[in-house]
Structures are given as C-alpha cells and as structure tokens.
C-alpha cells in the first residue's frame, strides 16, 4: 500500500483528471451510483436467501439416502415375549464382548416355521430362515471400525440402562427408515439428526464429543470438580505450555486432553 501523504497527492491528481476528462458524464455517474446502491442490496439479499435455502433445506436432502430395512421388526412385541429384556437377544458373550444384532440361529428357536400371519414374519422365515441366510440388518448405531466401545464397561460395570444411550427402541412397533450419509456411509443417527448440530436426546447423536461429554460429567462427579468450559480448558492448556510440570495436576486419564485417554475408546 502506498502512504497517506502521497495518497493525498494522488487524490488531488485523480480529481483533476475526472474534471478534465468528463464534465458531461459527471451527472450520469452520480445517477448510476444511486440506482446501483439499491440493486446491489437487492442482489445481495437474493444471493444470501438462495444460498441459505440450498444450505439448510436442499443440501441435507441430498446428503442422506433413505434405506428400508430388509424386513420390519416389532421390538415392543418381542420384549413381551422374552423374560430378560434387551439382553435376551442382545446378550453378552462369556468373554465380555457384546453380541449386538442377533444372528439367525437365535431367532430360529421360535421362528423355525411361520407362526402368525404377519407378512414380515412370513418373509423372514421364507427368505432367511429356510434358506439359512443371515438378515442384512442396517444398524442405526454402527460406529466406525476405529472405535472400541465396551458395552460391558457401561452395562456390567457402570450398571447403565440400554435406554440411556439407545432410547426407547424397545417400545417401538416398527423399524424407522435408515438414513445413510452418502459421503461417509454412516447412519444419520451417528451424527446429523439435526443438521444444525443440536440434540435433544443422547441417541440423537453418537459422536466422540457426545461420549466425552458424559464421561466428563461422570469423572467430574468422582473428582468433585466443575466441568471445564472450552475457554477455561484453553487457559489450562496455556498454563501447561508455560509450565509443563503443571501436567501432573491433569484430570481424566489422558495427559494431553481433558478427557479419558484416546486408547480407552480407540483401536
């Protein structure tokens, strides 16, 4: 950029030019400028409005593809049929690992052959049971393979309820549409239920921060201290930078983050 004093000079020169150049057009320029002002605003608003529509309405529609489950399933009914709640079908293996979605051989116990008139059951028995094919369920809460989630730690050790994270699926009479993110291939339930990123329930989103949020609350309880806001976490960080030995006072099982060590949930 050039500097004030000679800029002043330039301006004078500039003015001189204009007067010299176009006495006649002076007026028109003025007019144009006035008219331009209005149109500029108008166009600005148009552009902004259009893009907001695209961003908030059209984009989310395009981002997710809707998929139907191979067959519908009535959780509410099955819960009444079993005596051990969720764990009757979604059980723990002896080695502590979680079985997740039931395999065919569990269902066969009851569904050897068709019992009712429910088309879904008929489809299930004919297409899968009799053919010995596993049902390709679409799993709403499927996490990436870099994530290690220990159901045992939460259910068996911390005595949490399934509902706390998964919501009231047990009361659902049918399976909702599975929405898949076209880019990441994830279920929308992992993240994106609300495109703005807000969430009402735990099960609206299952990203890392959501796990961390709860974990921090818990460890805060244990260590009897307030939960850190991002700002005072930053302050802490700066303290650490200036005096690394302050690290020894770190909370949570990770030295670097204010959270639990990465390897607690990653593999």
């Amino acid at each position, binding site marked *: *950029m*050039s*500097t*004030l004093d*000679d*800029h002043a000079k330039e*301006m004078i020169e*500039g003015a001189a030019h204009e007067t010299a150049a176009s006495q006649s057009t002076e007026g028109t320029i003025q007019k144009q*400028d006035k008219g331009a002002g209005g149109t500029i605003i108008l166009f600005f608003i148009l552009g902004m409005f259009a893009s907001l529509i695209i961003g908030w309405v059209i984009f989310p529609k395009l981002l997710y593809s809707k998929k139907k489950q191979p067959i519908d399933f009535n959780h509410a009914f099955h819960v009444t049929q079993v005596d051990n709640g969720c764990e009757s079908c979604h059980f723990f293996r002896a080695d502590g690992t979680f079985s997740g979605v039931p395999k065919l051989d569990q269902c066969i116990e009851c569904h050897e052959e068709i019992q009712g008139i429910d088309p879904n059951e008929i489809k299930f028995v004919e297409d899968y049971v009799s053919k010995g094919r596993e049902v390709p369920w679409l799993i709403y809460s499927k996490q990436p393979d870099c994530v290690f989630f220990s159901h045992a730690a939460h259910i068996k050790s911390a005595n949490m309820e399934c509902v706390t994270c998964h919501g009231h699926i047990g009361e659902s009479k049918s399976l909702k549409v599975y929405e898949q993110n076209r880019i990441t291939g994830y279920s929308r339930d992992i993240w994106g239920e609300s495109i703005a990123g807000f969430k009402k329930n735990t099960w609206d989103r299952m990203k890392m921060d959501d796990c961390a949020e709860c974990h921090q609350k818990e460890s805060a309880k244990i260590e009897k201290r307030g939960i850190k806001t991002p700002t005072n976490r*930053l302050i802490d*960080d*700066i303290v*650490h*930078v*200036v*005096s*690394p030995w302050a690290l020894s006072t770190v909370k949570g099982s990770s030295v*670097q983050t204010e959270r639990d060590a990465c390897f607690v949930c990653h593999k």
Partner: protein
Amino acid sequence: MDSALIPKGVKRCPLWQFLLFIGAVGIVLLWGVYAMLLCWFKGLNQTNMNDYYGFALWIWADLAVIAVGGGAFFTGLLRYIFGKDVLKNIINYAVLIGFICYSSALLILAIDIGQPLRGWFIFWHANVHSMLTEVAFCLSCYFGVLTIEYLPLILENRQIEKVPFFHHLSHNMHEVMAVFAATGAFLSFFHQGSLGGVAGVLFGRPFAYREGVFIWPWTFFLFTWSAAACGPCFTILVTKITETITRKKLVKDNAIELLAKISGWMILTYIIAKTMSMWYWATVTAPSKGFTLMEFYSNNPLYGIWIVVAEILICGFVPAFILITKKGRKNPLTLWIAVILAVIGVCLNRWVMVLQVMAVPVMTFDHWAMYYPSWQEVATTILPVAYGVILIAISYRYLPVFPNEAELNPIEPVAEEATAVESPVELEEDLKPAEA
C-alpha cells in the same frame, strides 16, 4: 484494455511480450501443479521421503521461504512502528514478496501432509503444546494480515480505483495500516519463533534440541532474529533483480541503504548469538547426552563440518560486515554479494535444522540415512517460485508497486520505440529469474 490497466506515467513492455513471459513461467508452474496432483491423488509414496526422513525438502522449503518472507513484517515494523519513512518506497514490494512467500508456505504444507482433507484438524483439534500448532495458527493469521496489507495495492489499480467504493476503501485501509503492521509483527515473532521451536524442542534428537527459557528453546529466538535479519536482504535482492530485468531504477538508494544497514546489524548480532548458542550446545548440551560436536557432522559424505563454516562465517559474518560498513552498502557489487550470501545463509541454517537433524543417528547401532528428493518433490518446490514470479510480473505491470517509479523514470517520447526495439533482449532477461 491492457494499456488502460497499466498505471499512469510508467512504461511497460508490449502485451505479447508480457504474455510470452507469463506463458514460459506458466509451463514451469503447470509442471509443479502436475506433481502436486500426483502427491495428492497417489499419496506421499511419490516422494523420496522415508521413515527416517519424515521431514525433508518440503519442510526445508517451508522454513526457508518463511524466513526470507520475514522482510515483510520487519520492514512494516520499521516503517509504521519505528516510523522509518524512507522505507515507504519499498514497503509495497516487501508486502508483495511476503504475501508470495507465505501463500507458498501454506501451499507446500498442504502438499506435505499425508491427509490433506484432514488438514483442518490442526485448528479444530489443536494441541497447544505443539510448536506446529503455534506455527499453523500464526502462519494463517499472518497470511490474512498480509492479504489485507496487499489489498489496497490492488485497489489502486487504475480501473478499480475508478469505483468510488473501492477508492475510499483503499484510502481508509491506509489509515489503519499501522495496526495491521503491528499485528503482523507480533504474529511473525511467534510463528518465526515456533518454527525454530519445531526443531529445538525435540529432546529425543540431541542435535536439534536446545535449552532455553520456558518451553522456548534458543532456536525460537534465533529463528525470529535471523528472519528479521535476512528477510530484508531477500527483499533487497528481489528488488535488485527486478531492477536488472526491467532495467529501471525502481527504489531510491536511501531506502535500500537504510534497510541494508539495519539488516547488517541484525545479521551481525544474530550470527554472534547463533555462534554462542552453538558453542554452548557443543560444550554443554551435546556432551551431557554423550555426543561430541563432530559426531553430528561426520559420516555425512557430502559436506561434513563445512556446512557450519559456510553458514556462520561465509554467509554470516561476511554479509554482516559488508552491510554495516557504508562502503559495503554503497558499492552495488558488494551489496549484491552481501544480500545473496545472507539469503543463502539463512536457507542453509534451515536446511541444517531440518534435514541434518533427521540424518543424524541417535541410537549407537543406527546408521546415517541419506536422502535425495524425487522429481515430484523438486517440481512442487519450484512451483511456488514460478507462481511468485508470475504474481510479481502481474503486480508490477498493473499496480503502482513502486511509488517513485514514475519519478525515477520520466517517460520521453523516444522511449516508446526504444522499448519496441529492445523488447526481445528484455524478454530473454525476463526469462532468467523464472528458471533460476
């Protein structure tokens, strides 16, 4: 159209000539772009880097380009904070060069990382303990500042300026420029420093490790100091090259000399500090880890200890002494030598702090790994140079980069044919820096 864009009162070579030049450099640019795309789509296996040389040519280029780009913030500091008004005639160019250096640095970083699409993690998941985080933040902020500093210059283009809005915008921006200059200086201090810290904090790598204050090792301050010292030299160098190519005097001598003088003293103080730090490291730090000075320079088939001689004596003290003496500054030849040496010196320093560090084996049974860049690495490293040349050429042609140009080169009517005749020669000269 073209002539309408050219600033008033200055002469430029004919359009075809200009385009030819841009085209020539453009080819180099495209070559670099091709290599860049290879690295992005096929991955870093396109390079000759390996697990021993995680940092290599690119990181060196990054550090070097940022070091020589230091001219922008330091000149700005002198001009606006210390009110060295003479520098107003070179400040525009300093900013332009700085802008080029920093945009190049960011580009190289974008190529260098293994997962470019995740690059933003460095901001979103920042680890404040890491020098690299500090670098990333300050670097991008300062790049923003440079853009703001560069903008008014663009707005001063003859056509753009006609729009009153832009005209006033640029005018008003000038008013507050001091604030940005101050911010720039502040940010630069930190990222130049943290770049030094990048190597200095590696306590697992005795050759890189330096003690210091708090988390800042000496290299932190040495890097800032050396950038402030040698950056202006690069600004002078590029100015001189531009003057030679355009065969015009573009900046008044007093500006050049003042800058030269200041950076002369800066270099001197820096190189003394550097020598002391090296001495301390060789006699205290290294032995405490079981190493001797020579262990870091032996085994290297190429240069060995000579790189130290080159960096500290030839490219340190020599330019310093030339620039602090009036004679040295005034004599064009010695000035040339001095600025060139100074620039080489700071680049050598960055080379040592990046590649030598990687090469030196730390485990007694480990071996000295050698590395030479692949053509993709070279191409992507030359890419910013070509981009810089083009941006300078365009800016020089269409923007009032040099406030005194018109005054220093009044146009006589004869001049018109003159250029037409000389043009081929001029063209050839134009091409030189593009390849260099």
